[in-house]
């Protein structure tokens, strides 16, 4: 289900934004709730970033440290989130795993954004056959089941963390390209762009100086929602055994490796699952909040 949910979320978001506009008149409470949601998102994302950056120094135990005779212990004062089937501390593994999710999120979104921005700007600015070719290529990638495409790319490139980032980045580029292309088309016909064209500015300069600064808002929103998607995709691939191989503490592989002992030690699967869901939730909330804050049409 990971597929396209980010794109849909962003498509749905514009409708949500319109709904917000409607509700602003009638219910102050709804506005407050919404701000609360955005604040919650910021808090979750902030916490996640702190854990991912300095967490490993604070973790009570090592990510792969095994405690003999402590297998499958429930949550206790010694092991706050319990231990897994190898007697490893689930909490410590979660903390170390945050770094993997964060890394994948940043780099995968970076790759998608780079491809999406370049192709989307070219397609939107020049139009014509170039637009047709780029759009066709993106439609082709879009027609693939996302997870399947990622699995195939992973298998071709080889099973490693770097390749997970590349696969997720590639798979997700079309959604960025669509956002950028749409935004460029909207700005392309504005007076300031046309006057720059008339003044004889070269296209690269126009794109960099006049168009790009005007499309950053939708890009930031899409980036945040996409981060959620990247975290979810990494977890899904890791669940299937792609990317981070055990004993690496990727959250997705923690859920899948604990699946066999689910009945004996549900905590070993539940905590990493909740960590994934919370992180994804945080970035989704942040993305929604950013959209409302960055869209000047909604402020009035």
């Amino acid at each position, binding site marked *: 289900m990971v597929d396209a949910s980010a794109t849909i*979320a962003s498509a749905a978001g514009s409708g949500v934004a319109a709904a917000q506009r409607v509700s602003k008149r009638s219910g102050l409470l709804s506005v407050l709730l919404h701000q609360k949601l955005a604040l919650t998102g910021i808090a979750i994302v902030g916490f996640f970033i702190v854990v991912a950056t300095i967490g490993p120094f604070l973790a009570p135990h090592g990510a792969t440290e095994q405690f003999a005779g402590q297998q499958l212990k429930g949550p206790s004062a010694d092991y706050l989130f319990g231990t897994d089937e190898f007697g490893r501390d689930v909490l410590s593994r979660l903390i170390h795993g945050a770094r993997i999710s964060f890394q994948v999120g940043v780099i995968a979104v970076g790759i998608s954004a780079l491809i999406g921005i370049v192709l989307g700007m070219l397609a939107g600015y020049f139009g014509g056959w170039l637009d047709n070719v780029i759009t066709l290529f993106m439609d*082709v990638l879009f027609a693939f089941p996302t997870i399947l495409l990622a699995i195939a790319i992973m298998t071709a490139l080889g099973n490693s963390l770097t390749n997970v980032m590349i696969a997720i980045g590639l798979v997700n580029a079309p959604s960025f390209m669509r956002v950028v292309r749409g935004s460029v088309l909207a700005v392309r016909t504005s007076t300031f762009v046309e006057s720059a064209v008339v003044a004889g500015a070269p296209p690269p300069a126009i794109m960099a100086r006049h168009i790009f600064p005007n499309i950053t808002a939708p890009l930031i929103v899409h980036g945040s929602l996409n981060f959620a998607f990247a975290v979810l995709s990494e977890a899904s691939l890791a669940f*299937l055994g792609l990317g981070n191989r055990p004993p690496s503490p990727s959250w997705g592989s923690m859920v899948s490796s604990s699946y066999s002992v689910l009945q004996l030690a549900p905590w070993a699967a539940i905590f990493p699952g909740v960590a994934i869901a919370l992180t994804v939730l945080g970035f989704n909330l942040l993305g929604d909040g950013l959209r409302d804050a960055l869209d000047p049409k909604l402020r009035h």
Partner: protein
Amino acid sequence: MLKFILRRVLLMIPVLLGVTLVTFIIVRSIPGDPVQVLLGADRRTTPEQIEAIRQSYGLDQSLPVQYIKWLGHVLTGDLGSSLRTKRPLTQELGLRLPVSIQLTVMAGIIAAIPGLIFGVLAALKRNSGIDYATTIATLVGVSVPNFFLATLLVLVFSFWLKWLPPVGFRPFTDDPVQNLKTMIMPAVALGLPLAAILMRFTRSSVLEVMGQEHVRTARAKGIPQRQVLFRHVLPNAGIPILTIVGLQVASLLGGTVIIEQIFGLPGVGRYVYEAIANRDYPVVQSVTLVLAFLFVLVSLVVDVLYAVIDPRLRHAR
């Protein structure tokens, strides 16, 4: 109208051709020799025998030739045979596609019913308890990965309550009750996140239409609430909702990869996943094409329905 449909059908062709090409390139760049994988640990085969096997599958020809040949076969309806089982793919798909389609349809129903009902309710009773509950359910729904949802379902319904089997499959024609028992958890795991997306989208579409002039006019004329809803709001809000339902349900077919793996269902998702691992080229190429074709086909149907509902689109360039 016919012209519109024809143009959309023609547009499908380059996309599907692109899909075949991209699949071919990716699959063929997977390291590893399918013949070696096929033979496994059997070391007695001589290089001559390996070469003979390779020739019998046409794997000794150059890549462009292999691609064109495969494409030619596909165009005549021959999807090829699995390198592994040697069974024709049309036969394999005939067994597996129904499983995945049943799963997708069940998931679609599980998603659509609560998604649409609660979406409309939340919009109608804006700022009420039900609206907030829907908002929160939506946010949680889009954030929980489906494999984790599946894990929780298995934990509760298989291990704690012991109501449903954690893995296994029975064809519907063999034993309908057992079939539903094995399919319900996978369908819920696949469908619930989509229910959240639909709820959110339905709510915003309905709200958007409710703010429009014609709805206000209808209300001002004193038309009863129910009639305003069914005559003015829902038909207009229905168009974007339909698109999302169509595209999302189509993309569920791809989401079956993980779910079928967890619940041990013999569907297409699991089949193609295993084929990638086994370097079973024909299977990956053809099954991916079939999945992409179904996706493109559903988008086409959605587009056409869209045009039927909204005449403006028929004439749009």
